[in-house]
Each structure stands twice: as C-alpha cells, then as structure tokens.
C-alpha cells in the first residue's frame, strides 16, 4: 500500500485555498456579528439623540422654562399665551403605576411563595402557565376588558364615572403581575437550601421561616421585580389611555378622570404639526419618559448589586 507520506508543510502548500477559506469564513462571521452589535449601539444612541434634540427645543429656543413644565398645573397648548404644565400628567403616571405596584406586589409575592414553598408541583403545573399566559395577553385586550368590565364595575360601586386612576391601576396591576411574580419566584428558588432547613431545624413553622428568613433574604430581588413592574406600568400607553378618562388636571379622587404622560402623547401626537411648539412640548414629555426609564434601570442595577453582595 502506498499511503501518501504525511507531510504537513506540503499539505499546507497544496491547500492554501482551504486555509484561506477558513480565515475568510471566520472574518465574514465576525464582520456580521460586529455589524449587528454596532447597529444596536447606533440605534440606542440615535433614539436618545433624536428624542432629546426634539424634546429640549421648547426649553432652548421656544421660551418654555423647565420649572413651568415640571410644576405647572395647566396644560393649554393652544391658549394665549400657551401653557405647558405637565404636573397633572406626571402625577397621573406616578399615581397609576405606584398604585398598580401596591396591588400587584403582595399578590405576586404570595404567588411566588405558593410556587416555591407550599405546593411546588401544583404551582408549576397550574399557576406558572397561568402567569405566563397573563404576560402574553396584549395590552389593548387588557384595555378593552378594563373598559368593558372594570370601569362599569367601579361606576356602579363607587361615586364617580368609574374611569380614572383606580381603573388604570387595576388594569396595570394585572399587567405587571407576571413581571413581579416571575422575578420573585426566581429569587426564592435561588436561595440556598440550608437557610430554610436551618430555620425548620430550629422548630420554626413554615410561615415563620417565610416571614423571618426567606422574605428578608430575598428582599432586594423582590424589590427588583417591583421596580421593573413600575417601569412597565409607567411606560404602558394604550391600556391606561383607554380607561383613565384623559382629563388634563389632577383629580380629587381615584375615580375621577385623570391622565398620564403616555396617554397625552398617544392622543395629541397625531393631531399636531411637526415642529410646532405644541408638538415639541409632547416630545419633551417623551423625553421625560425616556429619562424615567434610565432612572428605573439605574435603580434595578443598584438593587442587583445588593443581591450579589
């Protein structure tokens, strides 16, 4: 048998094509992934740049002061002189999203404890899919259900028209429940087992273990979930816009028509001409939304650092 002598140098010399093919392949792949990442980075910078450049125009060249916008109570873009007080919107956004978190957080914690401590098997087979489905339902559908179930219910039960902050917060609380629950469940699952066993070994009941050991240890992660929930509620546009009533003033009760940053943008952006002061003021509101997102991400990062420690 005449096997070809294994001569690597000759091999390389006769197969420069193969070698080059490998390098080219790697280069092409690398170019593609770098292109994708570059695109991602460019996208986010242009989002910030374009929205900031539009949103800052009223303050820089159109004579609206930042203080008037943040603390002004009257939103009269077509008035003479026009007034751009965004406090009612800010108030509405904060009130609905924080109230939603207040409703959703205890429910989410209970669901997470149920899935990890009380009935893990049933929780995994019934509650977890239910939560995942809740997360998948589109926000307009929540808005529709809010408009046709929640609002009439509040109208019949409480004085007022049913629309308002409470209706918005109710709808939002169901929407952010999956976020809160999922993160709480992950946090409770990742706790070291010894912690729990130690507590049981000392004779503590299950509730004592949950209340004194598990909740304090997992608190930063639980808060992360709540903050992410608030962030989602803060940015949610259509579901809230459908049930809140959209009256641009600070309401006297939870069942009175109010409005949020997102709903005023949704309502007015299409009806104003690009470049007008009214239009640019709406971009300023969008800029506030953007800055709030940064703030939420920052808070989440700080909380995560506490978890790691």
């Amino acid at each position: 048998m005449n096997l070809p002598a294994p001569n690597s140098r000759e091999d390389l010399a006769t197969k420069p094509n193969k070698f080059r093919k490998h390098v080219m392949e790697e280069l092409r792949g690398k170019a593609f992934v770098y292109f994708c990442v570059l695109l991602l980075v460019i996208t986010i910078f242009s989002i910030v740049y374009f929205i900031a450049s539009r949103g800052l125009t009223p303050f820089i060249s159109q004579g609206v002061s930042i203080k008037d916008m943040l603390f002004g109570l009257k939103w009269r873009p077509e008035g003479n002189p026009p007034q751009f007080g965004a406090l009612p919107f800010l108030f509405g956004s904060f009130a609905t999203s924080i109230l939603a978190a207040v409703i959703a957080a205890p429910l989410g914690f209970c669901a997470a404890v149920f899935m990890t401590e009380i009935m893990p098997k049933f929780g995994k087979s019934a509650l977890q899919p239910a939560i995942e489905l809740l997360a998948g339902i589109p926000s307009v559908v929540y808005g529709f259900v809010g408009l046709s179930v929640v609002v009439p219910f509040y109208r019949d039960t409480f004085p007022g028209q049913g629309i308002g902050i409470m209706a918005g917060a109710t709808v939002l609380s169901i929407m952010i429940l999956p976020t809160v629950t999922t993160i709480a469940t992950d946090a409770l699952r990742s706790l070291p087992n010894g912690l729990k066993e130690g507590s049981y070994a000392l004779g503590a009941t299950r509730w004592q273990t949950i209340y004194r050991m598990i909740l304090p240890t997992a608190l930063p992660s639980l808060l992360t979930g709540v903050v992410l929930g608030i962030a989602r509620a803060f940015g949610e546009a259509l579901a809230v816009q459908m049930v809140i009533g959209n009256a641009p003033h600070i309401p006297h009760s939870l069942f009175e028509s109010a409005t949020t940053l997102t709903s005023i943008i949704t309502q007015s952006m299409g009806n104003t001409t690009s470049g007008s002061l009214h239009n640019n003021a709406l971009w300023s509101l969008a800029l506030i939304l953007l800055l709030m997102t940064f703030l939420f991400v920052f808070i989440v990062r700080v909380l995560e650092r506490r978890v790691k420690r």
Partner: protein
Amino acid sequence: MRAKTVDRIATAVIVCVAGFIILLLAALLGYLLVRGLGHISFDFLTSAPQALKAGGGIGPQLFNSVFLLVLTMIITVPLGIGAGIYMSEYAKDNKLTAFIRLIVEVLSSFPSIVIGLFGLLVIVNTFGFGYSLLSGALALTIFNLPMMVRLTEQSLRSVPKEQKEAGLALGLSRWKTIMSVMIPVALPSIVTGSILAAGRVFGEAAALLFTAGMSSPRLDFSDWNPLSPTSPLNPMRPAETLAVHIWKINSEGLAPDAPEIAAGASAVLVIMVLLFNLGARWLGRVVYRKLTASK
C-alpha cells in the same frame, strides 16, 4: 400553639391568593371568549371593516398583523442572533461589553410608545418611508431586538463546553464551530423564544400607531404584485394591525356594533396569542427531537 395557628392562617391566605390569580385568568379568558366567539364567523374574519354601518369585519387587519409579523421576524431574527453570538462568543470580558450589556438592558426597558415616537421621527419622516408596513416592522425590530439578543446569548451559553471545544479541536474556525455545532444545540430554545417574541409583536399596538399608521387602504386581494399600491403584499402601504384596530374602535369607533367588533377582535387576538404559546412549546420540542438523538 399560637405560632401554628398563624402558620395555618398565612398558608390559607397564600393558597387563596394563588387560587384567585388562576380564577382571574380563567375569568379573563372566559369573558373574552364568551363575548367574542359569538361574533366570530368566516365573514367577520375576512370582510373589510365598515366605518359607520354595522357588520364590518377585520379581514385586512388580520392580514396586516400576520404580514407585519413575518416582515419583523425576517429582520429581527438574523440581527438578534448575530448580536447574541457576539455577546456570548466574541465579546471580551471588559468595560465595553459591560456597556453593551447595559445598552441592551436599557433598550429592552424603553416604553414601546417611545420606540414608536422614534420610529415616527426617524423612520417615517427622516428616512421618508411614510406610514408603512416597513416602518412598523423596523420599529418592532427595535422593540424586539433586545429580547432576541438576550435569548440567543443565554441559549448559546447553555451549550455544553465540551461540544464547542471538540469543534475547535477539530480545527474548525470559531465561526464554523458556532454555526454548525453550537447553533443546532441551541436552536430549540432559540425557536421557542422567537415564537414567544413573535406573540409580543402580534399584540403590540403603541409602537405601531405612529409607524404603521392607523388606516388601511382598500386592498385588492387578487393583486399579488408587491409593487402595486393596492396589493396586500406591498410593504410601503400604511397598515392598521388588529391590535391597533381594537384600540381605535374602542376610543373612536362610530359603527353601531363597535363593542361587538372589539370583543370579536380581542378574542381573535387572544386565541392567536394562545396558539403562539402552545406552538412555541410544541415546535421547541420537535426541533429538539430532530436535532438531537433523544426521543
């Protein structure tokens, strides 16, 4: 004794809350289906909407939603997988990577309305794409990209290290190893995740109001030339999706049967989301079986 009583009460409360959540979901789905299913018929699913008369359908909207979904996924999937590969395989452990990770996190927490506004400003006006399916698809790509990136990164990270090392040891280039060894292993979870992301696209409305537009021109379903303005396949025409349609008829619907149409359309939307959920799980399993030796 007292501690035990408290324990029992607390357990009962927690179980009640869990039951309440399941009941809530059941009531929600039941309400939507009971109110909506009665209105769904073949005619409702295929006919065009009516502005002032009763009896309008959701045909064009349904088509737009599906078409937009396809367009979005065609753009999102390659970009997302590319960036995900970078994050898991090529990124070095340094400040730049940490920064990119931060960017992805920020991008994923932007409210969808902000993305829609960015789309209006840059894609619709500056690029001059107008209110069109393509603008909508690009906006939704921005909206979905972070999820896709994270998903790909996680799936690639869960590939056993030995498989990657075996590929590299055989003299394959890094790219070849990723494409022909690691991606097939990671594919089931990528597929499942992409379908779930697709479900999100299907229900998204806020990002589309100002990009894909709120109107639907008369479509000629016998004209399949993508360049003709009335063709359903033309990506440059404005297109109202199902989710946007639900929002619009709830806030400014003039047809006398607007609530029924909203109910029917919501039921269709929820059924589609359920199908996406089930489909994702099923397809993930099928792909897993196809690509691995396990049964």
